[in-house]
């Protein structure tokens, strides 16, 4: 294949009746990338994956997988992918071995190829003990493994995994993620989840969808920086101070920190040590650490901790997808209803929301190019 783009979605829109489940979703996944597909429940992750696996068709827009159009050549597309649908629906009346064999037969693997792949898959997914068991008797975690096993049986170049780690215990999760990382070296993997820690562990890139739209797409670090703020944690000893100075009260320390140029929303964090701990937010692309340090020295206080975080992915995720939650709780109904018939970008129409989300959607178009 001439191109390196393994999955290409352009302008995917899907309506279910009057509901727009996907709205012009576009992204690309290149060979060898492990991409986390993130979003709250109902954001359109599974719908997108079903379109990519040719289970359903988009209302408008097109997608190519491994160079084949999902509409024109679904069989070629499906041959190139291994797909694990959400919750791993399997034939519960079959044994694990029979099931894997069934899948291999449909995929046209011959006896010897099946044998060697089976060995590999059993090893990777930890199925040796359960090969002879009926799938119906297995726990959810094991079913998930079987589902993963069937997706891998033909050694596909592209894997599409819809919440592969749901229903797994922490050990199994770690194991699956480790495996995804390992096979992701020479394969293309698109994996959906709403667990951010998993994305941070296994993926280098993430696509965040919310209400059927892509709200962020890029390297994890880019996405973290997306909301345009940096978080600092400062801890100051509440008892000790340099000779001639008094130990700071919480109020005094907070006022002093607020006076730092660029600092905003200084917040005291709870702690059970004898210190004052503050969180403050600073502008992106700047570093307030030197200012904070100098301030503390000038006051004669004792600095116990000073940390600068790019914002956590968790917080970015919440920021970018905040509208969903509000809708579910019944707020913002009026604000979002007319949104159905327009196409402007700042759909996150929350009254009390500051300009973060707008910044975010501006940023993401640039991140997508990157």
């Amino acid at each position, binding site marked *: 294949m001439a191109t390196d783009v393994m999955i290409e979605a352009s302008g995917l829109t899907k309506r279910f009746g009057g509901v727009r489940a996907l709205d012009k979703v576009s992204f690309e996944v290149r060979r060898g990338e492990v991409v986390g597909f993130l979003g709250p429940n109902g954001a359109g992750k599974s719908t997108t994956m079903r379109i990519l696996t040719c289970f*359903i068709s988009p209302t408008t827009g097109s997608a190519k997988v491994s160079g084949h159009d999902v509409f024109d050549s679904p069989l070629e597309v*499906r041959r190139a992918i291994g*797909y694990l*649908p959400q919750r791993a629906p399997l*034939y519960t*009346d079959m044994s694990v071995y029979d099931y894997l064999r*069934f899948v291999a*037969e*449909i995929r046209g693997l011959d006896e010897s190829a099946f044998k060697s792949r089976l060995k590999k898959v059993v090893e990777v997914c930890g199925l040796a003990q359960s090969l002879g068991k009926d799938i119906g008797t297995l726990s959810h975690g094991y079913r998930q493994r079987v589902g993963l096993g069937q997706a891998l049986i033909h050694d596909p170049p592209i894997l599409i995994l819809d919440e592969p780690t749901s229903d797994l215990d922490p050990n199994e999760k770690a194991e699956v993620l480790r495996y995804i990382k390992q096979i992701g070296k020479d394969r293309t993997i698109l994996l959906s989840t709403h667990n951010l820690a998993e994305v941070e562990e296994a993926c280098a890139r993430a696509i965040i969808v919310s209400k059927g739209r892509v709200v962020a797409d890029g390297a994890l670090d880019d996405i973290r920086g997306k909301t345009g703020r940096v978080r600092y944690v400062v801890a100051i000893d509440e008892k000790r101070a340099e000779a001639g100075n008094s130990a700071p009260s919480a109020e005094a320390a907070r006022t002093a920190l607020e006076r730092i140029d660029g600092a905003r929303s200084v917040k005291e964090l709870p702690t059970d040590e004898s210190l004052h701990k503050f969180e403050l937010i600073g502008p992106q692309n700047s570093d307030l650490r030197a200012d904070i340090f100098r301030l503390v020295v000038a006051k004669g206080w004792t600095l116990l901790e000073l940390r600068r975080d790019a914002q956590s992915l968790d917080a970015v995720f919440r920021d970018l997808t905040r509208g969903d939650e509000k809708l579910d709780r019944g707020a913002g109904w009026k604000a979002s209803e007319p949104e159905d018939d327009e196409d402007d970008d700042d759909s996150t129409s929350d009254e009390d929301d500051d300009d973060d989300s707008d910044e975010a959607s501006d940023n993401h178009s640039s991140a997508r190019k990157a």
Partner: protein
Amino acid sequence: MSPMLTIAKREFRSNFDSPLAYVVICLSFFALGLMFFMLQGGFWQADRSSVERLFEYAPMGLSFLVVPVVTMRLVAEERRSGTLEMLITLPVSDSDVVLGKFFGALGLVLVLVLATLLYPFGMFKWPWVLGPLDMGPVASGYLGLILFSAAATSIGLLVSSLAESQAVAFFITFFVLAALWFFDNAAQYLSAGGNGGWFPTVLLYMSFQTRLSGFWRGLVDTRDILFFVSVTLLCLLVAFRALERRKWA
């Protein structure tokens, strides 16, 4: 092996993974035996070396019990449990899925149908020879039964691919097949006074019972063959469309 055959094989075998198939087989043979030997005087009273009664009653057993039970889960259950998504996203075309399921289910029905060969052979060839049996009507009777099974199975498959749950699929298939069977009686009732008009004629034309009765007597009419084949193809085609519908719903 083509994907279609693989699906058919799985479908066929899955019947034997649950007790349902065994129960249905036992029940239907028990019922057939009762009807054959007891109902309306029974086989012995008729006192003829003929198994026409078999061909008369077997389709009823198939219509009212076997086909609805065998076909009800085909698509409805897979859609409900989500395995349909798993199946369709394998490299199989929708027609592979429809045909695979059709042949898988038809396979089980035909096993039952062919098991009734015990009647003509057991009673008239070996170990008992109750009289000289004309094998012509037996052969044509089985041909009719096989064609009927295909049509009934395709109807069940179609209903299953439209129904929300297998219970709904069972009842709808049951009623459709029962209606198609009793159209014959309804037509006779309506035209009893000799002034039924066109409606009884149409009913008679569609009645499975009327269509089959020729086969029982050794009459192989191409119109009847064509009728069953057309019903089968039409239902499979609509089932295929029903399965495709998921893409656009």
